[in-house]
């Protein structure tokens, strides 16, 4: 049985196809561009094409992410916290703590051995604690997104940002530039500040190993390093982590489909 999870995020829409709740067949993503449902449709088509699926092959579709209600052709929607936890636990079965840093928010999630959410906390007050902030920094520091991480990694004395506001933090960074703080130090400071905010979320729910990093920022080596340095612990990070919520949604969809139809599976 093939199930699909669609994570309609605010920055990127991610999709995952899972076979029999055990094997990842494929993943795909597209930028959201303000229109989650059409990006979602495209991701679905991308996946269908890559796997040569025909209508009827897909047993169940479960959405997640901020746009989970905006995709009409779904059977179920689950919150992206539930699905990230599930997905992370699938990718790294020893995971007890999931840190999800996406475009607009960061969440720390404590989970059970089966991937069930025990406790979670997300940043609410301000958007300064997430990926969108890195994008903005890239924009006004005129460093392409692709180069941000690599340049940050050469930092000698990272310069932390104290402002809690994304907008005021920009000014702080500009001041740092004016004071001729080397660019890598500023960039690494950005990642470390993000990691520190994430760390306080993690402490709130209680830190326990293993920690698995998911969300778009797993692609950034600098972010991974910053998190590791801040929590003083090993942190799992792999690029599939970006698809954790989509994978989790597909898995939850599978569970649901099984329960609905009995072990024989659904055919439609």
């Amino acid at each position, binding site marked *: 049985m093939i199930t699909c999870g669609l994570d309609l995020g605010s920055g990127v829409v991610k999709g995952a196809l899972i076979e029999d709740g055990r094997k990842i067949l494929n993943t795909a993503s597209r930028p959201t561009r303000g229109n989650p449902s059409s990006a979602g449709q495209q991701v679905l088509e991308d996946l269908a094409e890559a796997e040569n699926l025909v209508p009827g092959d897909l047993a169940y579709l479960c959405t997640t992410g901020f746009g989970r209600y905006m995709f009409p052709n779904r059977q179920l929607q*689950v919150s992206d916290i*539930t699905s990230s936890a599930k997905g992370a636990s699938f990718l790294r079965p020893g995971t007890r703590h999931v840190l999800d840093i996406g475009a607009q928010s960061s969440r720390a999630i404590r989970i059970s051995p089966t991937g069930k959410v025990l406790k979670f906390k997300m940043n609410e007050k301000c958007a300064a604690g997430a990926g969108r902030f890195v994008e903005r920094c890239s924009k006004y520091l005129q460093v392409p997104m692709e180069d941000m991480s690599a340049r940050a990694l050469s930092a000698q004395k990272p310069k932390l940002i104290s402002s809690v506001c994304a907008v005021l933090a920009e000014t702080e960074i500009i001041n740092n530039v004016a004071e001729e703080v080397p660019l890598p130090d500023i960039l690494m400071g950005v990642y470390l500040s993000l990691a520190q905010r994430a760390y306080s979320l993690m402490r709130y729910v209680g830190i326990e190993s293993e920690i698995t990093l998911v969300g778009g920022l797993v692609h950034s080596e600098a972010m991974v390093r910053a998190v590791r340095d801040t929590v003083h612990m090993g942190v799992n990070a792999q690029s599939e982590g970006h698809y954790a919520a989509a994978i989790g949604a597909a898995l*939850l969809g599978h569970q649901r489909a099984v329960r609905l139809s009995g072990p024989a599976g659904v055919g439609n």
Partner: protein
Amino acid sequence: MTLLQIHENRGSARVAAPAEEPSVPTMNLSSDLKEVRATRDLAEALKLTKELIQDSSFPTARAWVAGGGHAAAFFPVYTPQEIAHALGLLPVSLRGGGEDLEITHADAALGSFLCSISKSTLELAITGKLDPFGAFVFPYICDVSRNLEGIFSRLRPNAVTHMLHLPQNFTSASSVPFLVAEYGRLVEKLERLAGQRLSKEALADSLQVYNRRRALLADLAAIRRNEPWKLAATELNLLERLGDLVPPEVQMPVLERALREVKERQRPKRDAVRVILVGPFCEQPTHDLLSLIEEAGCYVVGDELSMLHRWMGDVPVSGDPLENLARAYIRSPVDIGVRATPMPKGVSIVARAKEAEAQGVLFLTAKFCEPALEDVVLYRKGLDDHKIPYLHLEFEEKSTSYEQSRLQIETFVESVLFD
């Protein structure tokens, strides 16, 4: 045109009895507000109540004053409104400004890092919405409420303002005499507004009316607790809040009708998580947020929403009524953020959750509400020790985007329901 006529009973317990000679004041509400008492069914009463709550110009108080009476406004959480009732005043509970009030003046006087209810209450006062009230009573539930009284005393120099110091020492033998004296100061001020003296008999009568009202609300809350599918949290809340704005004599027939009707309801039981709401004892979550909580998969089987009516059970009527009222406050076992707690909080929250047979606790605290925020930490410890799941959300009056809250409540529900 049907007018809502609330016959002024001067605190008598004759609830449904029509006043023989409608002595002043008679309450005439404007034509667009239909007769609450005469509404045929619960749904209609609830709709009217919702309209009443949303109307930030306090139509009931305006009507009361237009009829020659005086109205007194009380800030949450607990105040002895019986006293105002016995003096023939219309006691109204201040509950903030709701979703639609724009705050443009109050920020300046109060500061930015404060809860919405304090700001919106002040905004209402500055913009004249509280003009019908001749008295303002603020209990010392927190520093904000306390200081608000000082600002009101400047803003409305001709009105009665009183910062009510409710004792925080519940074991001293002198707490009751002190509270009697403190109530005495309030009585004096309210007497000035009412233009008459408080008689023991009138107060005893009022105690009885309020006892009856508390009993009715307790019955409704019991339904909520035992058969939550029969009565939505939002419905119960509206029924309670009707009493914030109209005299008990008007509210009680509605409550009685509601009780009869709700008991008969046949509604399917949902697969929802039983939770208690802890924290919103002062500022109120919006109607939409409350219904979102249930929509997202919870049954609210216990809450702190209208604490005024739950602070005590039956207050004895014989003897000195003022002392009875004071004693009842001191002896009440209520444990919420605005009262020093005898029992460790970690223990008390677990007991409360168990008592309500709740599967989880939803902390719903107003942004910047320090009494609520500080308690959550101790509560959490107790719940962690007993492996009772919980979720902490903050709210404000003016937030129309509930996406974040929805996400978190759904996750919470999923974490309890899914394996």
